[in-house]
């Protein structure tokens, strides 16, 4: 049964895959038309409001349109191609059965940007995760959901504990002048040892103080956990084929608990 379904699936995907590989219409304008140029266009095709030019209008058009959003280069020719296609089919079923719509405003969607930053003449990479939010007046905005990698990159030591002398209470803590003003680099270590530091707050505090400098963004990925049974990742692939632009580069089969675990692992650095 599985083989039959995979075969059926391959037949419906084959025209899209062939067009992408063989470049049937090599004109750059035609390729641009096929490209998923924006996440909004991704959403329109995902929600079946728009079609990939090669998707056709037959009974399998809905499946073809969702398949066209996958990065074919990560699927075709791989040893587990059949299993991948099978997972894609179930993913598609889940979207259509539950009538799932993709939107950047969805609760299960957030964006991760791998950023190069510099702090005290050292350069490192941090991951900044963004979530859609509203301003107090109700306008759309991106907000920073989490930052990870400050410690991993070696830029900041958040595990160190620094000492304020145990006799300071007798001196009415007059030594805080030295503690804070002469040794600011020890600041993170003066906290109570059971209080873990939140990397997001540390990052924003360093930005606010002007000590941290943003260099550039290396990579952007969109994470979506809204489809029951799956998490998928979307990235922009600027290729010269009919399969290019914002495409699904990773599809992970998960149950609810695994989904929560995956997201926790991503957003909280251990």
């Amino acid at each position, binding site marked *: 049964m599985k083989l039959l379904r995979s075969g059926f699936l391959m037949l419906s995907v084959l025209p899209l895959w062939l067009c992408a590989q063989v470049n049937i219409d090599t004109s*750059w*304008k035609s390729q*641009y*038309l096929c*490209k998923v*140029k*924006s996440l*909004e*266009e991704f959403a329109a095709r995902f929600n079946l409001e728009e079609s990939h030019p090669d998707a056709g209008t037959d009974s399998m058009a809905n499946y073809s349109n969702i398949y066209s959003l996958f990065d074919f280069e990560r699927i075709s020719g791989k040893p587990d191609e059949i299993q991948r296609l099978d997972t894609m089919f179930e993913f598609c079923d889940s979207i259509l059965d539950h009538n799932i719509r993709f939107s950047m405003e969805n609760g299960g969607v957030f964006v991760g940007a791998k950023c190069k930053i510099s702090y005290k003449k050292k350069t490192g990479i941090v991951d900044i995760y963004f979530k859609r939010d509203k*301003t*107090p*007046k109700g*306008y*759309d*905005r991106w907000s920073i959901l989490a930052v990870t990698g400050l410690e991993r990159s070696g830029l900041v030591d958040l595990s160190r504990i620094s000492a304020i002398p145990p006799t300071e209470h007798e001196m009415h803590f007059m030594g805080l002048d030295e503690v804070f003003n002469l040794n600011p680099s020890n600041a993170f270590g003066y906290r109570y040892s059971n209080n873990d530091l939140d990397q997001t707050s540390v990052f924003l505090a360093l930005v606010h103080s002007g000590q941290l400098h943003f260099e*550039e963004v290396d990579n952007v990925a969109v994470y979506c956990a809204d489809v029951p049974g799956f998490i998928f990742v979307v990235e*922009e692939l*600027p*290729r*010269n084929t009919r399969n*290019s632009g914002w495409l699904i580069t990773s599809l992970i089969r998960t149950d609810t608990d695994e989904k929560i675990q995956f997201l926790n692992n991503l957003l909280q650095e251990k």
Partner: protein
Amino acid sequence: MKIKILLLAFFSLIGISMLAHDLSDSQIESLKKRVLQKVEEFQNYHSVIVNTDISENHRKNAISSALALFMGRGQEYTTTDENGNVEYHRPVRMQISSVNRSSTKSMKMTEYLDRQFKNALNYAKVVVESADIVRVGKIYKVNDGEYRGTAYFCSKYISYNKEGRVVYGDITDKKVNVSIYVKQLPGGEEIFEVRLGDVYVIATKRIRS
């Protein structure tokens, strides 16, 4: 007379309430068309800037006209957030990424257009062709009387030597930030002013001779 005054007040209130709320579908479509026009204007000026068949004066005027399409006319500028706080902005930039290069390159729009003007002199002919496909994305309200969006377009750049052979060519996909402001004219009429912002460029294909 009293009824007329009351009706006038009533319709004015409707007008004000429409202004305070989201744009209507027809206003959004009209805005998208304005954005499309601005992008097409930019592409037209770009093709003039690199066209060495046109006089140098005309080409330089095209640089000024192109910069006038952008926020701050290509210079530093400020905006205010919803709390009235001033936000500082660098001059509008072109960030260029290439499939052939791992890092991105960023330059001011003034510098980019200047380079386009000067580089064209190295060739017998330069042609910039648009894909004639401009997609305007969703328009978001970001402040009272202020909206933001993104436009997407693609163009081909080819330079030729005097024998007519291709020296250099590439196809680039571009995304441009768009800011839209509601301006009130002295007569009470409102217009939408569209300004282009930072441009993100992905060079997707190098055309070889």
